[in-house]
């Protein structure tokens, strides 16, 4: 049938730039608001532009040299990396276990599945405020812990740098649980039930079945979840802002890399957009390194 070739091919477009015209609006927007600023950020990182857009003399690699000597930059980078190191394994494993738990033909599972989505339905600011209340000195978490007798004095979840960071990680994991559950449920439904039944008949226990059927069957999803959770962790800003305040904890101790970029680049008085741009390039590089590592770690390149 020649019409097929005729229809979905180049010949029918006269003039030949018609298809490009259809794509142009989306393409222009993406170029202007994403690809362009990316190139712009790299260019900016070699200058000393002020956050008001003025100045902008070429300074070569100065910005890169100074961020590498800036303890605040390293503290923020360390926090972001620590964030990923703690959050990623939890976000790869916990939703899978939860999916395994929900993925049965027992009554009420539909309800549980919907209810677990609650944390992602609520916006990050809304849940951030909830957690702010939960973890306060007088909040329910401290009250319960004190009543049970686990602690004598309230734990300063929201006023000590490393505790703010851990609280923010907990918040991220809590939200991510419902999110990645959806991924794993989709993956689990693709594993034939017969595999489990055959393994059961052969005498394999639940742990064995999990390790030999579920884990290999969801490996690609685990890789994907790991990748998304990792990149998400490196991008964290709001959680720390909401739990640790606008300064990112006392003295900015709990600041993540995006937090540092915002402060360093855009503070109207002390900011230097060029300096922040250099840190932005570092953030991009970190994301890229993480993506490559995830691919390696995942084995085959079929993701």
């Amino acid at each position, binding site marked *: 049938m020649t019409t097929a070739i005729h229809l979905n091919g180049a010949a029918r477009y006269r003039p030949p730039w018609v298809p490009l015209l259809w794509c142009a609006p989306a393409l222009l927007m993406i170029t202007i608001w994403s690809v362009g600023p990316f190139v712009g950020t790299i260019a900016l990182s070699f200058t000393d532009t002020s956050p008001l857009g003025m100045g902008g003399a070429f300074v070569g690699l100065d910005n890169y040299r100074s961020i590498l000597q800036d303890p605040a930059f390293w503290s923020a980078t360390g926090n972001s990396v620590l964030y990923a190191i703690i959050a990623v394994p939890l976000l790869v494993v916990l939703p899978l276990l939860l999916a395994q738990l929900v993925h049965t033909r027992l009554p009420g599972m539909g309800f549980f599945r919907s209810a677990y989505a609650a944390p992602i339905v609520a916006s990050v600011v809304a849940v951030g405020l909830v957690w702010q209340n939960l973890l306060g000195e007088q909040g329910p978490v401290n009250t319960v812990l004190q009543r049970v007798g686990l602690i004598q004095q309230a734990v300063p979840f929201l006023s000590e740098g490393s505790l703010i960071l851990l609280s923010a990680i907990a918040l991220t994991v809590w939200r991510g649980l419902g999110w990645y559950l959806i991924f794993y449920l989709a993956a689990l439904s693709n594993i034939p039930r017969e595999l489990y039944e055959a393994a059961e008949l052969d005498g394999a226990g639940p742990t064995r079945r999990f390790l030999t059927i579920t884990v290999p069957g969801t490996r690609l999803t685990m890789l994907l979840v790991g990748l998304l959770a990792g990149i998400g962790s490196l991008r964290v800003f709001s959680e720390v802002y909401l739990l640790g305040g606008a300064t990112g904890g006392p003295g900015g101790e709990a600041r993540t890399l995006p937090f540092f*970029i915002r402060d360093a680049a855009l503070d109207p008085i002390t900011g230097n957009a060029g300096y922040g741009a250099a840190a932005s390039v570092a953030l991009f590089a970190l994301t890229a390194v993480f993506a490559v590592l995830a691919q390696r770690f995942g084995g085959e390149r079929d993701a």
Partner: protein
Amino acid sequence: MSARIEQSPARPLLRRRRRRWSRTTPVRYALLLLVLVISVGPLLWQFLSSLKGSGEALFGRDATLFPQLPTFDAYVTIFRQIPMDAYLTNSAIVCALTIASQVVLPTAAGYMLSRRGWRGRRVTFTVLIVSMVVPFESIMVSLFLMTQELGLLDTLVGAWLPGAVSAMNVLIMRASFTAVPDEIEDAAFLDGASEWQRFTALFLPSSIGAMLVVVVNSFITAWDDFLWPLLVLRSESSFTVSLGLARLSASSFGFDPRVVMAGSIIAVVPVLVVFIVLQRWFHRGVAAGGVK
């Protein structure tokens, strides 16, 4: 997605009975309830606390879980004390703009990308992929300077533009157009349908599902957005809900915590409604968002 999970292959009745209830079932339910308390509990606690009157303790040892005299006072107060209605309107405007641009532009681009063999197709793909690899946080400095240059600081248009079109949605739309079988298009062509007619009568109706996914995705992303509005919106009259609430809780005026709680519950409601109405598409959207 959830519909697929519910389906189970036909199997002997006896076998099914045996699998439904077992010795581990009570343990399973106990764990499920525990996770339920962890995931819904905090939000429920916040909601219940927001209903407490000013005489009841919110925190500390005297606080109870349920309000003794439930009242909507905090919800009235929040609209009186802060311009909550302006925040809601601003969020609605940004969301509406985002949904409109995220549906229309990616649909047009996605349609053409599902057609083969035209000049510029490969370049278009390259641009899309590059934009997906770059995290927003690493270009926000440049975006801020651009927005400032254009005089769009502190405007809702400035809050909307960087998130107006995302490459992900172009790819979602492309995938749904690609799924239309060539034979059906050929048949429509033989019946004399023009390209525009084929697009409107055949391709668009078959992609409504994908469009709903895009709608849900962009609504939630725009409603949720915090960092970018924080950078560009300056005056209270242009704040979105997220921004207004964060400022409210951080303000030194010492607002009644009940009011902040009421605010965060108000912020949840619109998304909750969308979620309940479009749950199926929400789940698909999450899964599609992962196919990067």
